[in-house]
């Protein structure tokens, strides 16, 4: 029983990360009908920013020991800033010029950006994985056999917080309403006085901020940053977004947790080498019976 609870916790931990990254995919898909395949790399850049920030504090001050809350907060904010900046540059240079191009063009462009960012970091770090300084004590809460690192609790809670904030943002703010309106009908939205270009940039920025922050916290959890670390979570988060119904915000959230937990459980049953198989079988099954995903909306409903 305890092992099952532990597996569930493991699933929720990584599932939260998938969910937060998946939101970036789903939001951008919503407004542009485009998959930003470089999104996972924003997560990776966040992890590196976190490393450089915390390592800087470690080397030049004793702040990591005296006020870790402050240094962690700064690292997260910087991670978001870097990711947002990159996303906006990406949007301006690699995607906006292709907005009227066939759909495949921005997709290829995104894959190019992804490869570029990965290799820039590979060069910058000389292919050396970077190890986070010990900011978070690696101690754990133990209940019987169940063990939860404090940093893991932090990661789980923060994922929830991010998801909550995003939901609030989408539902209750002016920019959020604009994003929803542009997602439904770009032209009509602009007739309602919504600046579509700015809304698209906001969408990229919000997705990137989430990915950047998640990168920092995930980096603290796994304690390393490598140039390749964004790739697999990126693919998984994309899967989660499709599973939940691409374009749907609650779908991306649910898809992330669903995928994380099903991976954890299938590891127990079949071993980790088959967990991706299980995940994709689930995806195929969902797409066969509900091509619009678990939470997505049928697009042909008005017909």
């Amino acid at each position, binding site marked *: 029983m305890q092992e099952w609870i532990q597996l569930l916790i493991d699933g929720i931990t990584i599932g939260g990360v998938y969910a937060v990254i998946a939101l970036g995919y789903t939001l951008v898909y919503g407004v542009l009908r485009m998959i930003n395949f470089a999104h996972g790399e924003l997560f990776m850049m966040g992890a590196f920013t976190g490393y450089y920030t915390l390592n800087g504090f470690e080397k030049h001050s004793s702040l990591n020991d005296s006020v870790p809350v402050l240094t962690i907060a700064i690292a997260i904010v910087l991670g978001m800033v870097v990711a947002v900046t990159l996303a906006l540059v990406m949007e301006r240079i690699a995607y906006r010029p292709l907005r009227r191009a066939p759909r495949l063009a921005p997709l290829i462009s995104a894959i190019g950006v992804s490869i570029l960012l990965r290799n820039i970091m590979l060069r910058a770090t000389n292919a050396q994985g970077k190890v986070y300084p010990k900011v978070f004590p690696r101690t754990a809460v133990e209940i019987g056999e169940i063990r939860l690192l404090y940093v893991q609790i932090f990661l789980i809670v923060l994922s929830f917080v991010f998801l909550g*904030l995003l939901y*609030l*943002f989408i539902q*209750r*703010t*002016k*920019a959020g*309403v*604009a994003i*929803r*309106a542009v997602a*439904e*009908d770009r*032209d*009509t*939205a*602009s*007739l*309602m*006085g*919504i*600046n*579509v270009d700015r809304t698209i940039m906001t969408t990229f920025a919000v997705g990137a901020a989430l990915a950047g922050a998640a990168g920092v916290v995930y980096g603290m959890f796994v304690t390393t940053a490598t140039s390749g670390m964004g790739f697999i979570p990126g693919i998984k988060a994309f899967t989660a977004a499709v599973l939940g119904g691409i374009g749907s915000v609650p779908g991306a959230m649910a898809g992330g947790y669903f995928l994380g937990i099903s991976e954890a459980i299938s590891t127990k049953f079949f071993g980790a080498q088959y967990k991706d198989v299980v995940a994709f079988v689930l995806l195929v099954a969902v797409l066969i019976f509900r091509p619009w995903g678990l939470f997505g*909306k049928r697009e042909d*409903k*008005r017909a």
Partner: protein
Amino acid sequence: MAILSVRHVSRAFEGLIALNDVSMEVEAETIVGVIGPNGAGKTTLFNLLTGFYRPTSGEIWFEGKRVDGLPLHRIAAAGISRTFQNIRLFSNMTAIENVLVGSHLHLSTNIATAILRLPFTVKQEKRAVQSAVETLRFVGLAGRENELAWNLAYGEQRRLEIARALAVRPRMLLLDEPTAGMNPGESVDMIRLIRALRDDLRMTVVLIEHQMRVVMGVCEYITVLDHGEKISEGRPEDVQKDQRVIEAYLGTGALLSEGAS
């Protein structure tokens, strides 16, 4: 003084001339009809007025400001709003949310205020919701606020589209076939609503319409387009007698038989 001034506007699509040297003036707080056979260029004119297209040549002035060439959202901000021939609501949003998107321009909530729920924000939100409710009541959708847009009946959807357009707080409203597909009863209600727009809200209304009963009943001034050119304009009773208009409509019979549709 005219609120809208269209000056020698032409628009060509890869050589096909959809609108040719059309000029027209619309006085503030009037209801103006744009009529003409299919393919006359009516919708093209609307698309030019709202910024979907740029004129190939000519100028469009609204309230003393030149608006052609402006991005769509700037034209909306300048005070022009519209509805569509084929309804284009945000169908996954509720009725009131659709209206709130329209009032988007006049809101200032961000993520910080949404979390903190400052008195100012709460008040602003309340006001926006209140005004949205009022707008919905005005168009006759009281009690339907929380219905998803695509669950509304056809006539209701048309009204919601008008409510959403009103939320932008325009001075001029463009209605593209507001009674299309409506039964006579619904059409009468719509005519009443259009009059109220002008009488109660002091709105300038320009509408495209096929049903002559509606056009003749509600419009104070009419512009007739045919093959992209303006062939006549004036008061309804004068236009009706215009020989060129009769020729343009010859065969359709629509003009004289009081909207046989």
